[in-house]
């Protein structure tokens, strides 16, 4: 069964290779020294890139005037200086034999490779906008930028830097009295070592100051942004196999639901897809209730903790409420519709959500060939057939947890799409309306009462599903189920959203922090004074960075002021000569170019909100098959 790679598969080996490298106690030959410099150059540069990717700490945006003084910035500057020292030396030995064969060089090279690949994995969860801003491309994106995950990453980076720095000290010939006997590679290492030491301390301090609760297991569990392969239901699959397949199916659906959130609008999605999603959600939740009741009973038979039994019973009751609310949603879709455009294809979620219902059903019922057909109906599984051991109880629980989580995410995406459809493309068949509705078209706009009932049904279903998922989050966390990562991700994501909203409220015009690549005036002044103490130089660099940020912020403010003041204060001769009064008024708000467009007479009449030539196949006013 192919599984999507996770960040931990890169982080773990990277740490192991660094540990292996720094465990070397001997003296490296010159060519290996050169190799170490080259690989350390790559490694430190990668660490610096990780730091650049991290969101600025909470204090950074809360007090932008002091942003450059935070330890995260200090760490980035220190790593940058270490990288500069190594890079110059590495460039100088590029043509030399650089001792790749030495095991230490191999370990450092592998660590740099793993860290770079891990960073690439994290980057799959983001789009880079033309402005350079990063936008989430998956439901994992807010998890990655959340405080607990940033903390875990900072802790890892700090440990690498702190492992490497003392080892570099030994390898740089620090015990030798004079500089004259050092090789060029040792000189480079000696120059980089204090910066790396400072970086390690600064990273650790930043983590402790800003993100006190690292979530290393969540960090390690972050998958690449690629859905796992589809898991077509296999007739006769045993419970243990179903418990492996359900999480993968749920994960595919989560990916599809995220993609759907942007693409669910007209004309791609029809009510047939939403109806199918609701139907499968009802069937999956119904089966999940049966499974949870069986698990609660099995937990009692196995003499597991009474609290766990009670929690499972509560979750089963919540699941019962969930499927009943989903059933009501399907009832509402019996009447409301977007019409039946030929060629409309179901969404990817609607195409595959049946897999989840089938797998959940096969876990709930005795017949391993169970389907939704009457002919394959079956009695409910015995609790012992569901889970033989306590470990099985946890595995089955995790499967139900994954299914509930996926249903919740799909529900949110569908609800948003349905809200979008309300008012312009929800109809009812006129044949189903009372006879006093004399409408000579097969469809009529859905009466408000139908629409309200549909939206209320979705609200209830989403609420019930969220309530049950939270209950399952608690159980999974308590028993350390594999699905507990869902609970951790949900918490981290909620925290990230909360922090993002708070920051947006507090200040909207903060500028991205661009670290000065070269020493600034203060640092240069210290260097002219032949100050070589890295701690002092770092303080100088931080001061320079603060000045750099302050000037950038002031420039941005001045630029914004010019934009606001400029066009409004200038006359608009063409508009005033030819335009009507409304165009002149509008021009004061929206600028010259747009105002000129408004003032130009156009042939034909354009109704507000309707683009000329845009196809609205199901809009009442544009098809004879729909009532006006």
């Amino acid at each position, binding site marked *: 069964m192919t599984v999507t790679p996770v960040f931990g598969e890169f982080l773990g080996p990277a740490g192991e290779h660094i540990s292996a490298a720094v465990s070397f106690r001997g003296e490296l030959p010159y060519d290996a020294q050169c190799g170490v410099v080259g690989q350390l150059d790559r490694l430190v540069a990668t660490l610096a890139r990780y730091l650049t990717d991290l969101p600025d700490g909470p204090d950074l945006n809360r007090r932008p005037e002091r942003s450059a003084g935070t330890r995260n910035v200090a760490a980035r500057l220190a790593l940058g200086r270490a990288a500069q020292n190594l890079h110059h030396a590495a460039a100088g030995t590029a043509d030399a034999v650089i001792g790749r064969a030495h095991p230490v060089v191999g370990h450092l090279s592998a660590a740099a490779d793993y860290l770079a690949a891990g960073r690439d994995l994290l980057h799959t969860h983001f789009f880079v906008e033309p402005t350079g801003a990063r936008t989430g491309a998956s439901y994992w994106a807010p998890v990655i930028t959340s405080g607990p995950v940033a903390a875990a990453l900072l802790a890892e980076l700090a440990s690498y830097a702190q492992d490497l720095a003392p080892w570099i000290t030994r390898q740089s010939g620090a015990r030798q009295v004079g500089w004259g006997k050092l090789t060029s590679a040792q000189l480079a290492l000696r120059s980089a070592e204090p910066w790396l030491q400072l970086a390690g301390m600064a990273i650790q301090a930043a983590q402790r100051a800003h993100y006190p609760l690292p979530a290393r297991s969540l960090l390690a569990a972050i998958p690449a942004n690629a859905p796992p392969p589809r898991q077509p239901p296999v007739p006769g699959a045993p419970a243990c196999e179903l418990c492996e397949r359900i999480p993968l199916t749920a994960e595919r659906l989560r990916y599809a639901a995220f993609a759907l959130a942007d693409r669910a609008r007209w004309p791609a999605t029809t009510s047939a897809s939403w109806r199918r999603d609701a139907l499968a959600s009802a069937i999956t939740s119904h089966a999940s209730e049966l499974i949870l009741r069986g698990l609660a009973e099995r937990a009692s038979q196995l003499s597991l903790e009474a609290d766990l039994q009670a929690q499972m019973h509560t979750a089963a009751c919540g699941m019962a409420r969930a499927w009943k609310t989903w059933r009501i949603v399907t009832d509402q879709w019996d009447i409301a*519709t977007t019409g039946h455009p030929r060629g409309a294809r179901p969404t990817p979620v609607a195409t595959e959500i049946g897999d989840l219902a089938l797998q959940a*059903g096969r876990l709930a019922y005795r017949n391993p060939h169970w389907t939704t*057909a009457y002919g394959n109906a079956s009695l409910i599984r015995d609790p012992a057939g569901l889970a033989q051991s306590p470990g099985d109880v946890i595995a089955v629980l995790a499967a139900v947890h994954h299914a509930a989580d996926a249903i919740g995410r799909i529900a949110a995406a569908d609800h948003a799409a349905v809200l979008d459809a309300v008012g312009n493309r929800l109809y009812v068949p006129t044949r189903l309306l009372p006879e006093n509705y004399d409408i000579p078209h097969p469809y009529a706009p859905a009466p408000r009462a139908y629409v309200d009932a549909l939206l209320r049904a979705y609200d209830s279903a989403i609420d019930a599903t969220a309530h049950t998922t939270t209950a399952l989050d608690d159980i999974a966390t308590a028993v350390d189920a594999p699905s507990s990562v869902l609970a951790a991700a949900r918490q981290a994501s909620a925290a990230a959203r909360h922090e993002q909203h708070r920051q947006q409220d507090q200040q909207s015009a903060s500028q991205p922090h661009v670290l000065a690549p070269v020493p600034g005036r203060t640092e240069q002044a210290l260097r002219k004074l032949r100050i070589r103490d890295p701690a002092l130089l770092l303080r100088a660099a931080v001061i320079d960075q603060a000045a750099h940020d302050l000037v950038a912020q002031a420039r941005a403010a001045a630029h914004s002021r010019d934009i606001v003041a400029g066009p409004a204060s200038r006359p608009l001769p063409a508009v005033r000569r030819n335009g009507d009064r409304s165009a002149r008024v509008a021009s004061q708000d929206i600028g010259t170019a747009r105002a000129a467009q408004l003032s130009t007479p156009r042939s034909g009449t354009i109704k507000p909100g309707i683009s000329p030539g845009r196809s609205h196949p199901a809009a009442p006013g544009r098809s004879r098959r729909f009532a006006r």
Partner: protein
Amino acid sequence: MSDVPTASDIEARLRQVSGLPETLDASFDAFEAIRRAARDCQDRVPELFAAFMMTADAAVDGREALTPAPSLPPTSGIEPGHAGTARADASEVADALAALAAVLRDRLIGAAALAGTPDDQAACQDAAEAAGRICQLMTR
């Protein structure tokens, strides 16, 4: 004595109608009657919850397939009916729905051959597919 047509009444109507508009009219009502019966039965037996839910959904698919057919009359004026009864148990209702869906499928396949326009033909074919699904779902 109820005036609401039962499964056998609906089946008899389907067998008696001739011509495309009448067949589409009776078929639309048959799908609606199946939907109502399936909804009434879906909570009766936990083991059959999924089967009746899926049947109701397939009935909506069939009804939606027919709705835009150009030859479908605006309204029949006939109460669509209910393809089950409150007193019948779930197995009996399933049997009745399977039988009704089989007739419905056959009539729609025949209607597709009679259809003079591609839209009517496509509507009949899609609806026949939905009726076939109901038949599969409800067959014991």
